[in-house]
């Protein structure tokens, strides 16, 4: 008997809740096997991954720091993906937002004032939007595939950042190393918890989650986005312009990714460097999908992914595991999460037919 997938008439409500649980159990089992292969105690491994990082106040704060950009961008991308607008280039929009926000911080070097931080964040949003609008323009005007244009523009953005930190924005006292000055205190995000790095960006991320949820569930715009994605022809027929949806979702994605970039440079990094993101814009695509393109889901997924990064570091320090093993475990977890989601819309059936096909 061969198993095959049969589409359900209706999504299974049971599986909506059960699938993450199954995924968690499967990845625990896989983790135990992986840790046994590596000759470390499975309990110690799982403890290092999921419990240890959360055992101190600092650890929990770091989870917030790491999750902030992932949640922000994850929410923004899930709106676009829902509408069938494939913005793969959040990394570039983040980089431009960080660069322009950082340039603003350097412009106000050694100045005081409460206007500086709002200006940095606003610059991040506007520049990220501007960068994403290139993609929107090319798509609407020339029907250029946004997957390609947004991805290619990411590389342009990173190289442009390189150009700037090697040139005009270089620290004048930095021995020609490609880094900007450290920002002055008035350009650094206020800290929420004394003695940690948790900054107000985390609150902004929560606000974005709430706004995203309201937009998607309560507004006409949210309805238009969903309709554009699930029934493009019907939605056009109803008078929702496709170009409007493309513009709006790309501007939202670019703006929030740019905000995330500005938060990163004026938060935990505190200066401009040749690289300001270890691929948050790309990881956020996984976040959006693990969160099933729902703002609250994206928040949970962002926190989960952040936890696996912290856990990976702890596992390296405490168990001397190589980074590749922590990467394998992280990937297994995501694989099971996405694979189990299939069960929501499909059920497994053991058909006789498959056997007969084999026999003939």
């Amino acid at each position, binding site marked *: 008997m061969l198993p095959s997938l049969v589409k359900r008439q209706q999504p299974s409500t049971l599986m909506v809740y059960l699938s993450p649980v199954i995924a968690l159990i499967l990845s625990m089992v896989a983790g135990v096997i992986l840790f046994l292969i590596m000759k470390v105690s499975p309990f110690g491994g799982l403890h290092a991954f999921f419990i240890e990082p959360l055992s101190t106040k600092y650890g929990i704060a770091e989870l917030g720091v*790491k999750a902030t950009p992932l949640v922000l961008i994850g929410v923004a991308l899930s709106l676009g993906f829902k509408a069938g607008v494939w913005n793969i280039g959040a990394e570039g929009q983040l980089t431009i937002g960080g660069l322009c926000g950082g340039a603003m911080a350097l412009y106000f070097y050694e100045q005081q004032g409460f206007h500086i931080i709002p200006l940095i964040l606003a610059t991040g949003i506007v520049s990220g939007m501007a960068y994403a609008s290139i993609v929107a323009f090319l798509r609407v005007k020339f029907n250029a595939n946004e997957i390609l244009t947004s991805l290619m523009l990411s590389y342009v953005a990173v190289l442009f950042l390189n150009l700037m930190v*090697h040139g005009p924005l270089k620290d004048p006292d930095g021995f020609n190393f490609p*880094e900007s000055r450290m920002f002055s205190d008035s350009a650094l995000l206020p800290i929420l918890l004394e003695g940690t790095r948790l900054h107000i960006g985390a609150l902004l991320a929560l606000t974005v989650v709430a706004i995203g949820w309201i937009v998607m569930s309560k507004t006409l715009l949210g309805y238009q986005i969903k309709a554009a994605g699930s029934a493009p022809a019907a939605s056009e027929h109803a008078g929702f312009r496709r170009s409007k949806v493309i513009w709006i979702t790309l501007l939202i994605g670019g703006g929030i990714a740019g905000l995330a970039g500005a938060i990163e440079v004026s938060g935990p990094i505190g200066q401009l460097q040749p690289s*300001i993101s270890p691929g948050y814009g790309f990881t956020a695509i996984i976040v959006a999908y693990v969160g099933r393109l729902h703002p609250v889901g994206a928040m949970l997924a962002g926190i989960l992914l952040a936890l696996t990064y912290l856990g990976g*570091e702890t596992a390296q*320090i405490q168990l001397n595991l190589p*980074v590749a093993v922590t990467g394998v475990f992280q990937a297994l977890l995501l694989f099971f999460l996405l694979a189990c989601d299939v069960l929501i819309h499909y059920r497994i059936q053991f058909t006789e037919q498959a056997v007969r096909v084999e026999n003939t």
Partner: protein
Amino acid sequence: MFKKTLISLILAAGLAFGASASAETKVGFVYVGPIGDHGWSYQHDQGRLAVEKELGVKTSYVENVPEGADAERVIRQLASSGHNLIFTTSFGFMNPTVKVAKQFPNVKFEHATGYKRADNVATYAARFYEGRAIIGTIAGKMTKTNVVGYIASFPIPEVIRGINSFTLAMKKVNPEAKIKVVWVNTWFDPGKESDAAKALIDQGCDILTQHTDSPAPLQVAESRGVYAFGQASDMKAFAPNAQLTSIVDNWNDYYVAQTKAVMDGTWKSMDTWGGLKDKMVEMAPYGDAVPADVRAMADAVKNGILDGSFHPFQGPIKNQQGELVVKEGEVLSDKELVGMNWYVEGVEGSIPK
């Protein structure tokens, strides 16, 4: 008031306990690349293993740490989990190291290739440019096409210094030889590095040298039948015929000495810039392809550096514009070398800004 005293007493007891518990020395290492780069991070890990072997202390490491927001957390995690000495082995870890060091005054930090120090932050680096003078000499003698390829990472002083030292040595033995520099903007990316190697060979280079961390360019050289120099580690295993020699970083002695200093309580913050003389820079054995007379010339440069009679940056040196920068009989000071941001005469192209 009483409560406050009680709390501070408990805290003091905690600190005292913490101090006595850390009588056992633990050393942490932060690597920018994977250990499997067989170059930069690999050699630092060799140093870590030497510390474990010779002193029997516990060590831990975190590899592939991005230079950005994550570095500070990793360094802090090492500091707060009982490590008394932490080596951060990439330039981009400088500011995070200094930040964490402020919060952990009792932990000693050692940052490679940076310039910011504090009471508990020392810096160290190696004079790789000394090795570049030796391989520049070999390249000048052995190139037939008179075009040598140079795969460079980032236009920071360390890399510029290497290009200049190589070029000066090469031009000295072969004024006709030229170098072509390709910037790959990465320390470790085997794909990009081998693309650069192929492009350079296609442009007529018959010898390659690199300031990136993977053995990929050597493998390309091996398969295309040209020569190349290894980087950071002896890469002969990847290119048995192509590797002429390799500039090997040797951190073992330094790491063992600094760990010992922490154990004895004699550790002090300082700046160490070791070269051939300190065995922090070593040369791998010459490949079979290097003829005896070239070996002799390379040895002469090496011995000159060792006994102080030769300096890779001794005058007369002209810059690209042909202006005399270092007069006959003078050498560039360490201070000038640290911030070097200009090409010597004979390098083509300009430094990317």
